[in-house]
């Protein structure tokens, strides 16, 4: 039986980000998968060591374009643990609100992308139209649709003023109604079910062995959500239930994400009710004491861990971040075996890959054949001379 190898990526119109999977095929059926990452690896961990603590927040935020709020929350939580400070209660609720808004925005984005991968462009258009409501809310609160940069070490930067609350509530009601409609579409539409039910199956045992995280694990009946198990920023005072499905397939992951969006909506409502007026951040010294800490946050794609180590200097000694997508890659390779080429986009999309999360690249120049590193000054002067800007 002859196999032939179809490389999908690193540049492929269906896959938004640069990663490469070598699929060993037997006809149209996938026999084996070999991932090759590293195409958008940007050396952020090394970059963190060159930036001051506050500048690190903005770098952490640019790890991923979609789930940037959890990255800043996790980084600030870890650094606050080193400082040993307690964030004011209102700031904690504001963090819950902005995190859950980010989860809704990320999940709706993913449902649209699933529609696009399955060739259902209308669903993509509708879902992304409704997602604009969440983006407008984030813009209203923080001033920027995509990178709110809401967190700072010691609390939150932007506050929710009383006249914003009715606008938020009205938009949440609209979003709830639309998400319920999309849930019914995902449940009833025969073409979607034909392409997603029993596709990319990941058994519960395999999900546990390969340490899958987030909706991928929860769709294989693994009860793991950092907001419940290891609550941070007052998640324990919000009662909302942990969604799991036992269908273990792409459809199950879709339903987990849709239900989680509904849960996030009423989590925001509870946070809005429980919020009391008060300070939104605490002033901190510029340099934290010596020490190390790690913090975990439930990003839309799964459990996210930040580990930070300080040696009393202006810049962190070591900052490590493990993004959920990296944890899901072994499970993804497991899921792909035995399915058709046509299922690849649906299965790959089902773990909601965020490859710029997983990657951090170094600066080298292959065509000159050698590697050299530049200081920031040289980099900036080079770019200025190159563009002839006022030097």
């Amino acid at each position: 039986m002859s196999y032939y190898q179809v490389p999908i990526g690193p540049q492929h119109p269906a896959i938004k980000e640069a990663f490469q999977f070598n699929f060993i095929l037997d006809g149209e059926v996938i026999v084996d998968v070999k991932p090759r990452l590293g195409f958008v690896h940007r050396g952020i961990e090394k970059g963190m060591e060159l930036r001051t603590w506050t500048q690190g927040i903005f770098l952490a935020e640019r790890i991923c374009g979609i789930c940037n709020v959890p990255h800043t929350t996790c980084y600030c939580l870890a650094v606050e643990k080193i400082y040993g400070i307690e964030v004011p209660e209102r700031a904690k609720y504001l963090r819950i609100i902005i995190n859950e808004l980010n989860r809704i925005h990320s999940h709706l984005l993913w449902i649209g992308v699933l529609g696009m991968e399955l060739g259902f462009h209308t669903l993509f258009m509708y879902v992304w139209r409704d997602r604009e409501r969440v983006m407008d809310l984030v813009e209203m609160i923080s001033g920027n649709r995509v990178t709110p940069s809401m967190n700072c070490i010691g609390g939150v930067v932007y506050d929710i003023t009383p006249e914003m609350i009715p606008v938020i509530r009205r938009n949440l009601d609209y979003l709830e109604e639309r998400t319920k409609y999309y849930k019914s579409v995902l449940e009833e539409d025969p073409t979607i079910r034909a392409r997603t039910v029993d596709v990319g199956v990941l058994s519960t045992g395999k999900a546990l062995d390969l340490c899958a995280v987030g909706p991928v694990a929860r769709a294989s009946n693994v009860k793991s959500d950092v907001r419940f198990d290891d609550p941070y920023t007052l998640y324990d005072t919000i009662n909302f239930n942990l969604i799991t499905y036992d269908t273990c397939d792409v459809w199950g992951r879709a339903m987990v994400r849709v239900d989680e969006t509904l849960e996030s909506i009423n989590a925001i409502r509870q946070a809005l009710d429980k919020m009391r007026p008060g300070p939104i951040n605490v002033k901190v010294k510029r340099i934290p004491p010596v020490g190390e800490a790690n913090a975990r946050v439930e990003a839309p794609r799964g459990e996210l861990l930040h580990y930070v180590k300080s040696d009393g200097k202006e810049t962190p000694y070591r900052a490590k971040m493990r993004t959920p997508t990296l944890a899901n890659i072994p499970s993804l390779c497991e899921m792909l075996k035995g399915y058709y080429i046509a299922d690849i986009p649906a299965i790959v999309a089902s773990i909601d890959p965020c490859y710029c999360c997983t990657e951090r690249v170094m600066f080298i120049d292959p065509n000159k054949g050698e590697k050299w590193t530049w200081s920031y000054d040289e980099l900036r002067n080079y770019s200025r001379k190159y563009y002839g800007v006022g030097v």
Partner: protein
Amino acid sequence: MDLAFTLIRIFIFPGLLFLSILAFLFEWIDRKAYARFQNRIGPLYAGPSGILQPIADFIKLMGKEDITPKYVDALIFNNAPIFAVAIPFFASLYLPLDGSPILTSFEGDIVLLLTLMTLYTIVAFIAGWASTNRFSTVGAARAVLQFLAYEIPMFISVASVAVYVGSTSLTYISMNQPVPMILLQPIGFIVFVISMQAELERIPFDIPEAESEIVAGWLTEYCGPKLAFLRFAEDLKLVFCSGLATALFLAGGSGPILPPLVWFVLKMIFVVLLSSYIRSLFARFRIDQMVSGCWKYLIPLSILQLILTRFVGVGLRWL
């Protein structure tokens, strides 16, 4: 004098020029309706509300560099677009646009038209195979696989109309339908529209060029003028298929006060809108689901329609 008149008829008025304008118009209607179904505006800037957008795309593609990849079977690769445009053009000449066919009409010209459409799929296959690119070979294989699935129900539903009206000449059928066949043979019309959607390779049957899996299927290696011609061929096929549907099921040019040509184009636009509506309702099927779906559902339905026509139809003949 008579020769000049027929030449004008073939090349200018209801012939090639008019058909090309119709092709661009239908693409605009299709894109505008598809956008409105998705709550978007659709083409907007080129010409009044974007009506010149298809022509703008065509000219832009014509202006691009014409690349023939090295390892490609140049002879077939370069000539495939020409065949792809010629086939729908030639087939559309048989449509009874203004009551009488553009070129001629003879007994059995339906069979010719359907074989021309089969020929188009063969052209698509050899074009995909000739471009030796992995994605296009998979796309070409899928095009032929899909062709096996939708051809049979399409032929049977056309046959049941021919059996009912008692002739296999397109003009005769479209002229002497007592009542538009869509009313008499609804199942046949549904089967025809679905297989037409598959023939035009539109969602939910655009598997041969499914961009999320195999880039652009058999079109992957084409760019520049060749791609412009292939896109233009697809628009022409849309014109031809909607014309065929109109002539067979919607009683061609006959209609109360308006001249037959206007009626014919209006009905074609209705069929295009219907196809665009279907396009916005479905996700793409997988190739094995599509083939099994056609064999399990479409063929029995079309055979049922044939049986109904044979027995029930005759009873209604005196209508």
